[in-house]
């Protein structure tokens, strides 16, 4: 990644420069699992307090503070509860969790064990995306090593604490990245989100309290415990502290995963970390938080600071931190077309506005293929998208509607031109 950076500047990627760090002995030599052992000596509430103080926000997309979420969780340590690590990273443009798991699965496992200790959970699952076959194998091997060392299993390190961790491969549905959809899928049902309330923290997997956290959130826990909440807070802004993994794709010279403090400007990310625009082309637009976030035009992109508040203030969302950079050679119509196709394909079909709406958005936008397009179709698209928002159980309808509405807001003329270009076969 960024060669110039000092690896002590990283939280999540602090071990990534070590070769073969995915092996447990290498990881331990570098200081891994130390914090786990240290945390077993601490009171669980102290760990929870520390995470809360660090201000770590859920890295899955919504950005809800992890410590606060843990605070809602059942405090009865004897009761049966579940911890689920959400590694079903399916948002187009996102590949940070894959990179993290692939390079260093043990930092995640350590984070999960610490969290399970803090929350008093006996059983955990890593729900990994079905397409991540290699990564699932890496995780399985890592789990085997951890079990061999009795970091997992019965009576861990003689601390009278049992914790079992399993890897569960999904079957390739985007919607299983949504926590209740993930739980349905894990239960063996069709991956469809469940009605909230009740929230999973009260009634989740098999009707028992379940904590669902993103890979990146859990992997940040060991670092926070080692260096303390204050050290973590030094990075980032007041409301968005810490570092974040960004997966950068698109028309830049060096796409990939980087770890930077929240609040780094998008300009810095593109120019310094990614080596500038490819072929020196002009920047046209940036999708800042995965395919479901509204797009920024070139001016906004250079101004925005990548933290939860500033991106939201500029009308988009940080999401999972998938930055898609678009240069002037691309047509925004094509991008929207592929986005709408994706959401149409991935709608679970439960709630009507999403089931029918995602399909219709796509057909409206593709009317040019039958020579039926009118200029007013853009208004219809906008209206349809707005009537889908906030109407469904999960946020997939919003995820399909937001990029459409955002794109119309910023690139209306280009889209009008695009749909009026008949490509009737």
């Amino acid at each position, binding site marked *: 990644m960024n060669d110039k950076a000092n690896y002590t500047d990283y939280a999540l990627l602090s071990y990534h420069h070590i070769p073969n760090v995915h092996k447990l002995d290498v990881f331990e030599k570098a200081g891994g699992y130390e914090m786990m052992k240290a945390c077993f000596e601490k009171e669980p509430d102290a760990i929870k307090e520390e995470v809360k103080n660090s201000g770590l926000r859920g890295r899955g997309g919504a950005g809800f503070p992890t410590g606060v979420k843990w605070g809602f969780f059942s405090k009865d340590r004897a009761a049966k509860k579940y911890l689920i690590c959400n590694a079903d990273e399916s948002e187009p443009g996102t590949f940070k969790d894959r990179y993290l798991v692939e390079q260093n699965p043990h930092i995640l496992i350590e984070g999960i064990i610490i969290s399970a200790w803090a929350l008093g959970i006996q059983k955990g699952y890593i729900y990994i995306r079905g397409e991540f076959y290699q990564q699932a194998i890496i995780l399985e091997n890592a789990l085997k090593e951890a079990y061999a060392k009795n970091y997992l299993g019965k009576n861990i390190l003689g601390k009278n604490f049992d914790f079992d961790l399993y890897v569960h491969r999904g079957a390739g549905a985007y919607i299983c990245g949504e926590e209740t959809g993930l739980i349905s899928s894990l239960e063996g049902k069709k991956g469809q989100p469940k009605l909230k309330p009740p929230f999973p923290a009260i009634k989740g997997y098999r009707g028992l309290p379940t904590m669902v956290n993103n890979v990146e959130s859990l992997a940040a826990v060991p670092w926070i415990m080692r260096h303390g909440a204050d050290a973590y807070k030094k990075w980032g802004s007041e409301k968005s502290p810490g570092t974040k993994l960004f997966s950068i794709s698109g028309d830049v010279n060096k796409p990939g995963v980087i770890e930077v403090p929240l609040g780094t400007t998008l300009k810095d990310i593109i120019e310094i970390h990614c080596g500038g625009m490819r072929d020196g082309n002009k920047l046209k637009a940036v999708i800042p938080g995965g395919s479901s976030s509204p797009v920024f035009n070139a001016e906004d992109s250079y101004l925005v600071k990548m933290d939860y508040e500033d991106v939201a203030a500029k009308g988009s969302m940080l999401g999972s931190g998938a930055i898609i950079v678009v240069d002037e050679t691309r047509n925004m119509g094509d991008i929207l077309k592929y986005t709408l196709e994706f959401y149409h394909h991935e709608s679970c079909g439960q709630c*009507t506005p999403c089931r029918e709406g995602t399909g219709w958005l796509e057909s409206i936008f593709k009317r040019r293929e039958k020579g039926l397009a009118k200029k007013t179709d853009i208004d219809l698209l906008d209206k349809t998208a707005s009537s889908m928002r906030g109407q469904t159980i999960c946020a997939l309808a919003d995820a399909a509607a937001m990029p459409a509405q955002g794109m119309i807001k910023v690139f209306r003329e280009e889209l009008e031109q695009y749909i009026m270009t008949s490509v009737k076969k």
Partner: protein
Amino acid sequence: MSEKVKFSWNGKEIEAEKGTNLLAAALDNGIEVAHYCYHRGLSVAGVCRMCMVEQDGVPRPFPSCNATVAEGIVVKSDTPKVQTAVQATLQFHLLNHPLDCPVCDQAGECGLQDYYMKYGVYDSQMIDKKAHKSKVQDIGCDVMLDAERCILCARCTRFTAEVTKTNELGILNRGDHAEITVNEKLKNDYAQNLVDICPVGALTSKDFRFKQRVWFLSDVYTTCIGCEVGCSVKISENKNGAFRVKPVMDLAVNGHWMCDDGRKIYKHISAPGRITEILNEEQIVEKIKGKKSKFILSTALTNQEYSSFFDSLKGSKSDVALYMLPNIGPEFDGILKRGNKNPNLAGAVKAFADYKVDSTNDGLNKLLEGLTKNDVVYLVIPEIIYDEDHFRTLISKIQKAGVKIALTPSATIISLHEFDHLLPVPTFLEKNGEMTNYQGSLRTLRAGKSYGDTSKDISYYAKWVQV
């Protein structure tokens, strides 16, 4: 008494029991709320997104079916935000709907049609290709499935999962290709309820299919005579006859459902060949003069009929016995159906006891054994006969009698070879009265239209005895 809470819906003060579903509370108080997926007898799915409401202090609209009432909440469903949301959602519901109302049996009582009149976007903007799914599927148990008309409210899948626990139905595929599919065929005794709970025309009854348009029918709210449960039902009929039976919610007796056997109780009412008039009345009266009358009653008569019958018989030396239908299947199947098929057994036994007549099988056997050439037997044919062989044994036993008269509410299996005369009595849909079910509660029968001479019930024939 459980605790009551007060809340306001669109400014109307509503009182409901604590913990009641918000949507149910509103519906109970006569407020019209558009909804498809919510059904009182099933779990909450919250997928149709039609029952959206706004509540003071809650940032965005939410479905009222997934909320419970609470003291003092202020709920509104008539705000512009909710109205436009419902309008848009209905538009989405209709987007891939085939709009084949002309050939759809549900037309006239369809949720889509009803709400379209209220929330419809009348200018269609849909010029795109619709999603196509399989139509005209016979999924067993006389249920027809049209996946294209389906709005995927999942009431039917929840019904098979939660009520019958047979899980034959499921939703296959995702997004707008999702469709209801059946695992092999339906195999349960309550499948016709699927037709009732389907808010659109996706599930229709094969029995009722294309027989009538629903707007030609009127409903009679009465009681099922299929077994001793006495479910509340409504029977749809017009001048051409009765056409279907549907359950009516009655939490004390049948809840929301009824069994498939009960769906067939209407068939004899307007069947061709039903005995509707008395031929040669004077001849018959002449023939039975001086003979001893013996009556075998069925258990499908009303309490009023029993007592007026015994009253008319007073003073004569006639014998009376009761024919009880044999039990079919298990005593109770866990949902509704009971093995005892005598609809008014309790009422009959009580009436017989009141008039000091033996209502047991011993009484019947005694009557049958004592039959001679000098006897007239009046056999009241049960309206619904499940076990024909059992009934035929009874018929063969009365052949000893001199004159055999059948009092029949239907065109039954019997013929003039076995009986000398067939005389009409009203069916359960042609008389008012009460029956007593197995719980001991009174179930009301209400008369609809008449399909024959229904003025003469069994007490009319009882009066012949004294001539």
